[in-house]
């Protein structure tokens, strides 16, 4: 009977050890910063409209994802002008590849809020002042707990509140080398489209986005 308990204990110990070892193997190593899609290679400032009351859609195509494995996504906004950006809302829409019907809507936040005000004259936000095309301010949004899949397309959508601050802000577009990203803008808050809703038609073709500069894993 003693042998019985010994072997039973051994069995349990081995199983626990094996499970523990496997669990450790599955823990990802400290991830290096990696692009999930090719970001904007150059910075510009031309073509910016007055952003008060406008929403920008930026397509992150699943077909352009580069295979970096990640369970999170970090989006970076680029500013080349203005003193304060007042954001009404930010979301990430998921749609079928090359489709426009929303499958999922994920909140995008900065500092824990979907409607942040970004003070571009603050050196803790934008270290090099004043913000300009030669000294762009790149703002990293909160990491989104979402693994981008090559089987879907994603539209990052940002709405700029109808106020005077937003009349002055400028994004990094329209660059000559937009990478895999493209965007267009529409009047009004376009961040409230629900699941099964349809995204508006992109009538601006494959123009570079104005604000979304990079899409990385962290």
């Amino acid at each position, binding site marked *: 009977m003693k042998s019985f308990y010994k072997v039973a204990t051994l069995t349990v110990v081995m199983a626990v050890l094996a499970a523990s070892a496997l669990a450790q193997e599955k823990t990802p190593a400290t991830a290096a910063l990696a692009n999930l899609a090719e970001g904007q290679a150059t910075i510009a400032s031309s073509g910016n409209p007055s952003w008060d009351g406008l929403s920008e859609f930026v397509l992150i195509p699943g077909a*352009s994802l580069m*295979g970096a494995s990640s369970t999170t996504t970090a989006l970076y906004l680029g500013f080349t002008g203005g003193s304060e950006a007042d954001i009404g809302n930010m979301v990430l829409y998921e749609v079928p590849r090359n489709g426009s019907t929303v499958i999922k809507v994920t909140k995008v936040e900065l500092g824990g809020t979907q409607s942040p005000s970004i003070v571009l004259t603050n050196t803790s936000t934008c270290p090099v002042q004043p913000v300009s095309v030669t000294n762009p301010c790149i703002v990293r949004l909160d990491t989104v707990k979402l693994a981008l899949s090559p089987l879907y397309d994603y539209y990052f959508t940002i709405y700029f509140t109808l106020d005077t601050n937003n009349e002055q802000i400028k994004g990094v577009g329209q660059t000559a080398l937009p990478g895999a990203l493209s965007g267009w803008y529409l009047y009004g808050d376009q961040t409230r489209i629900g699941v099964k809703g349809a995204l508006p038609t992109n009538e601006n073709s494959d123009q570079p986005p104005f604000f979304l500069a990079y899409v990385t894993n962290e």
Partner: protein
Amino acid sequence: MKSIFKFATLTVILTIMMFALSAYGFSAAKPENLERGVVGPVASNGSWSGYSVLALVPGAGLIPVTSTQTVFYLGFAAGSQADISNMVLYATPRGSSTITAVTPLTLGGVSNPTIDLASSTVCPVVEISAFNPCIVRLDPTKITLSALSDYYLVVYFTADDSNNSSIGVTYPSFSQTSLRGTYQSGDDTQLTVGKSIPLAITSFTNAPYLLMYVMTD
């Protein structure tokens, strides 16, 4: 003593199972892009009876994702049935037009499939359109794409075929893809090793017709 053997056996089985599960977990790779595929909205380009679609998959555009197989996805945006006479993949040295390998491409095990675009099992959203394109996944090809080669996917649509006269294949509205393409009348799928791709590489300036994605699975 019997108990000892029972538990010893159980221990071994448990360990093997856990390692097997572990190996499965690590090898069950999710689909990844091998090239930057077609992005954004697509348009429909019609009337393909008797035409060959040629799509260039440039070695220079390969994303460094390890894979022992390649899966091609075709897009249709109009029609009810596509009748394909043959599908092949030519390999050439990078930038060269001399064919070094010919690999048959299949769908459902055949190189001359008939694709029922009106079937909801083939195209979940019927009726297909530019807004609801039908993406057809070909059988995985046991080929590892190399950055040292270029690849040409060629699909020949059966001639004198009323179905093919009314189909529309996808054509990207955006040009942001690594894939390039063109087309011409006649069957370009019968070329052999040593022959040349029938069109100069400079003809492949447009985004591709038909070919949407090149993936690992």
